[in-house]
């Protein structure tokens, strides 16, 4: 293990570490603590310029209630869910199929198709923006969640395919060979033998895609203009304009908007990290 375990170091070093750890954590998360504290402040504190001192009163839920019931944040959150969940299912579903084909079959264009997905996944969004916006308008899906979902599914399919293909490649190939010899149809091999083994990869991709799409801001602003269909990232920006200097509301709104991915992360931490660090260990 590197660095050397702290338990093997001197008494002084151990205690220093014990102190340094929480201090570093507090400094690292200082901006978030500030946001949380502000979300609990009464409006009067903000108006009086009391941003960082003791709150004159702690409002545990009033600001949150104000944001949820008296602003558009509630509907924005629902829009976000309506965009995120179908995208997650679509992209991961498609990637199961493409990843399987690229991992299991040998054919001439295999590496070419694989590289197309990888390269596409890295391109800047701006090179896609004008044509995708135009296509979405042509399809009559501008200002509709489906316009966003279709694009996100297609784009995320690149990353998901890369992930799935590498995951399936690492599975024992004998399983598939044995099933072929038994005369199983290709689709049966996929759905009965490989798919159940892909569960961890599916879980990892689902949490990752959920987070990516929930946090997407660029495409939401490009493909959606109407307030009524805006997801929460775009919505927050609009609200920030309305709530000039009403930081207690901006803070409460930010916290609410951040909750679903944070919850996802903590619930599925192992899968989330496995997904993000794909390739970080093998040479």
């Amino acid at each position: 293990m590197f660095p050397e375990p702290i338990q093997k170091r001197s008494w002084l070093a151990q205690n220093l570490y014990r102190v340094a750890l929480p201090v570093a954590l507090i400094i690292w998360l200082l901006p978030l603590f500030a946001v949380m504290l502000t979300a609990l402040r009464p409006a009067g504190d903000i108006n009086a310029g009391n941003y960082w001192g003791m709150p004159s009163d702690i409002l545990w839920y009033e600001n949150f209630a104000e944001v949820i019931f008296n602003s558009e944040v509630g509907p924005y959150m629902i829009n976000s869910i309506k965009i995120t969940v179908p995208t997650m299912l679509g992209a991961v579903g498609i990637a199961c199929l493409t990843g399987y084909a690229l991992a299991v079959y040998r054919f001439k264009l295999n590496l070419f198709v694989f590289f197309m997905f990888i390269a596409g996944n890295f391109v800047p969004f701006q090179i896609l923006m004008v044509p995708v916006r135009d296509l979405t308008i042509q399809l009559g899906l501008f200002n509709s969640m489906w316009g966003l979902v279709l694009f996100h599914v297609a784009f995320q399919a690149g990353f998901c395919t890369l992930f799935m293909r590498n995951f399936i490649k690492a599975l024992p190939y004998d399983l598939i060979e044995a099933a072929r010899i038994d005369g199983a149809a290709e689709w049966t091999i996929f759905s009965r033998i490989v798919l159940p083994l892909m569960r961890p990869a599916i879980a990892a991709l689902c949490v990752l895609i959920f987070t990516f799409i929930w946090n997407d801001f660029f495409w939401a602003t490009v493909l959606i203009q109407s307030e009524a269909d805006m997801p929460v990232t775009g919505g927050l920006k609009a609200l920030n304009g309305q709530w000039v200097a009403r930081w207690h509301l901006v803070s409460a709104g930010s916290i609410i908007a951040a909750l679903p991915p944070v919850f996802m992360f903590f619930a599925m931490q192992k899968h989330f990290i496995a997904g993000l660090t794909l390739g970080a260990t093998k040479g």
Partner: protein
Amino acid sequence: MMLTTQQKRALTPWLFMAPGIVMFLVYVIWPIGQSLRLSFYQWDGLSPPTFIGWENYIELWYDPTFVVALKNNVIWLVLYMLAVPFGLFVALFLNQTVTGIRLVKSLFFFPFVISQVVVGLVFAWFYDPNNGLLNIVIGWFGMDPVSILADEDLVTYGIIAAGLWPQTAYCMILYLTGLNSVSPDVVEAGKIDGARGWSMLWHVVLPQLRPATFIAVVVTVIGALRSFDLIAIMTQGGPYQQSQVLAYYMYENALSEYGYRMGYGSAIATVLFLIMMVYIAGFLYKMYRDEQRS
């Protein structure tokens, strides 16, 4: 039509891949070609596009804001790279087994999970000249308040600092995973050879962390060139366009309130795309070598 078994075999992978390939061609590959083409046109998004040859690119050459955006993109690329050593440093700091360390690691990773919109709002407020925490802290040291996001010289650095926060968290998690798989035998062997501290890190541990470093650099380059959200939230390119980057400038031109300039925007996007292609080509080349080896 009857297919032979062999033909069926050949067809199977394509049937599996059909939905993915069709979607990807329609929404990613074809639009890239379209944008490259559009960069030679003048188009307001409504009337038919007019072919104008290299005009857009010639205009870019003389456009001062484009030069600023390009320069800022270089600054982003260079400074964003700090996330890699920072992430390594944090990972080394946290790679211990003490009580509660798992929770501490998750909390350190937190900034990456939340949306950049929220990160942007939080930092805009942190930098606020009147009541921002930053100015209160520098006030303790007797310095005059600075309005980072309104200062032409500081604004880009202020936004990059905000971006480094989640990006460092990402690099940290890559290195933590990498450190997990550093072989203890090699570390022991290094110790016997007299390697300690820095020399151990540099000569023994870092070579083993190469895959993690590679991915950290790749995601950081992409992150730097994709920087859009923070600029849209914090400054919208201002003051006086001094925090522009290509990604935001393209968006601003293509969907400008003064009339859409889709062709000009596409030319900016093409420049950004070509910069990115250098890195993509490098990445694919490495992937190709790895594939050949296995």
